[in-house]
């Protein structure tokens, strides 16, 4: 599904990713762990297509297509979802309006018919209910006045409505208490743990991985993957720290 080869990228001439390679197959959940400054968020933004992140070498293919050649909205329409570490507040635009615009833009881009207002509201209500996000909240402006936990739950509602093929979730666990973490983890498992879907979980900590068990764990340090393994690698990192591996 996703094939990253020797990816080199940076911001403002500062190299951050220095030859990162990674393959994610359909049905797989991969975790990327690593110390601060390793390039975890940069990887998320480069995959998402954010302006200002310059790719200087390597390639990324998504279902056989050149991902780096697509604009951010084209990547979304192709099936990529980027979960934000800090979801953005948009005053004056309701969640319902935001999501319906997004969903229908994706459907148009794929040559599908737009979803009617009624069908969309039913879908939004069902996904909101599953994550404890009420219709009242859905009618409020995007993330405005939401707590940290509510913003992350809202990301999961968006993911549930959009139903991507690949979710790249950047520190989705940060700022969550243990109850909210469980709700978000349940959301990831429910929405994305499926044969045709894949997840790239970018995280600092083991705790999310206890609830969303990955098939593979990778350690990102100094801009490249320095070690890969199974779920047990996360426990080893939690016990011994990054220093022993990244050194």
């Amino acid at each position, binding site marked *: 599904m996703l094939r990253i080869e020797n990816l080199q990228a940076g911001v403002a001439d500062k190299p951050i990713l220095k030859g990162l390679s990674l393959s994610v197959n359909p049905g797989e959940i991969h975790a990327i762990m690593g110390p601060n400054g390793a390039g975890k968020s940069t990887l998320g933004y480069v995959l*998402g*297509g*954010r*302006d200002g992140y310059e790719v200087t070498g390597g390639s990324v293919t998504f279902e056989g297509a050149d991902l780096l050649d697509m*604009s*951010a*909205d084209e*990547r*979304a*329409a192709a099936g990529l*979802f*980027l979960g*934000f570490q800090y*979801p*953005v*507040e*948009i*005053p*004056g*635009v309701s969640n319902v*309006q*935001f*999501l319906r*615009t*997004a*969903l229908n*833009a*994706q459907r148009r*881009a794929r040559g599908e018919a737009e979803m009617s207002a009624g069908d969309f509201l039913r879908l939004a209500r069902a996904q909101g209910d599953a994550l404890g996000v009420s219709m009242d909240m859905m009618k409020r402006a*995007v993330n405005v006045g939401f707590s940290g936990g509510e913003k992350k739950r809202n990301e999961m509602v*968006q993911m549930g409505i*959009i139903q991507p093929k690949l979710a790249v979730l950047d520190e989705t666990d940060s700022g969550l208490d243990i109850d909210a973490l469980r709700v978000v983890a349940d959301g990831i498992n429910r929405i994305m743990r499926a044969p045709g879907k894949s997840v790239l979980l970018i995280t600092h900590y083991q705790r999310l991985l206890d609830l969303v068990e990955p098939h593979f764990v990778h350690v990102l340090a100094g801009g490249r993957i320095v070690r890969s393994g199974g779920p047990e690698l996360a426990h080893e990192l939690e016990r011994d720290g990054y220093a022993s591996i990244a050194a």
Partner: protein
Amino acid sequence: MTLALPSNRQEAWRWSDLSSLPDFAARAPGALASPLPNLWLDCAIPGPRLLFVDGRLVTEESNLGTIEIGAHQEASDHALARHAGEGWTLRLDAGHAPLGLVQIVHAATGAADHLAGEILLGEDAQASVVETFIGEGWTNRFTRMRLARSARLMLSRRIRSSGFVSLTEDAEVGQGASLTVATLAAGAADTRLDANIRLTGDSAFAEAGGALLARGKQRHDANLVLRHEQPNGVSRQVWRSVADGRATCSVAARVEVARGAQKTDGEQSLKGLLLARTATVNAKPELEIYADDVKCAHGATVGELNRDALFYLASRGVPEAEAKALLTSAFVQDALARIGEEAVREAFEADAEKWLAQGSFVPSEVEGRT
């Protein structure tokens, strides 16, 4: 007609470009496209409807109701409004029958025209008037409003035309009366908006605001003076300016509080959004306060679309142009959401959406002279 126009060297006119006006004044009117698009709004009680083409009433398309047409007693000494000496009068006295929404369409066909309007509301009288501007030319309007005790007036203007639109208001708001003026400039015309609103009675309310949308080399220039002459008055000025290309939007809004106008509550919010680095937004909030127990808040900001929000929308699949339109629409929403009448608010929102979606209105609604 000889035109004596103010120059940019005068402070109140420094952001205006009146250079197209002599040309319009020298031209003869063109022809009206037929049929005219349906511009009448559906509303619960159908009120009077007036269609003016080049400032002249088209009788067969109009339904005057209680509105009279003729010369006005009081003229304006405003540099542009002084050209408008006659026009329509809406006079309502206490206990009048429900009027419905008054709709006035002003169509221009390539030349200049001048027209005055009067809205004279007696005690407890209520009216809502919506004016729609279409076509191409210089459309010059003067509106005199007098609100007696507890009268209520909502005046809404949709500018969808090309050329130049100048609107001058002179209003007095009596005791406990309420005046709301809302303007949306969403056409290709340059505009000059002047309002002089005086709160002449205790506990009067006045609101003047709107959204100015400009692209290309368009210029919008709004100048407002809201004067509190009596205690307990409330005033609101909410303006949202959007400028793209090499366009300029300017809003100069002043609140004056006279000696003795205690407990005045004034609020100004002037915000500008630049869609291009080559565009300009001028915001000039002014307060002139001679009473000591008043609350006057003002805020003026000019900025660009939030890049984080644009990327967030893109990451969910919204193409750039659509994302910009959505965020710009949210920006002007503050000014449009204040319009109480649903049919009018929806028409305003539709005009703004259309401007955002496809560029300015083309002047094909009315054929101008070429």
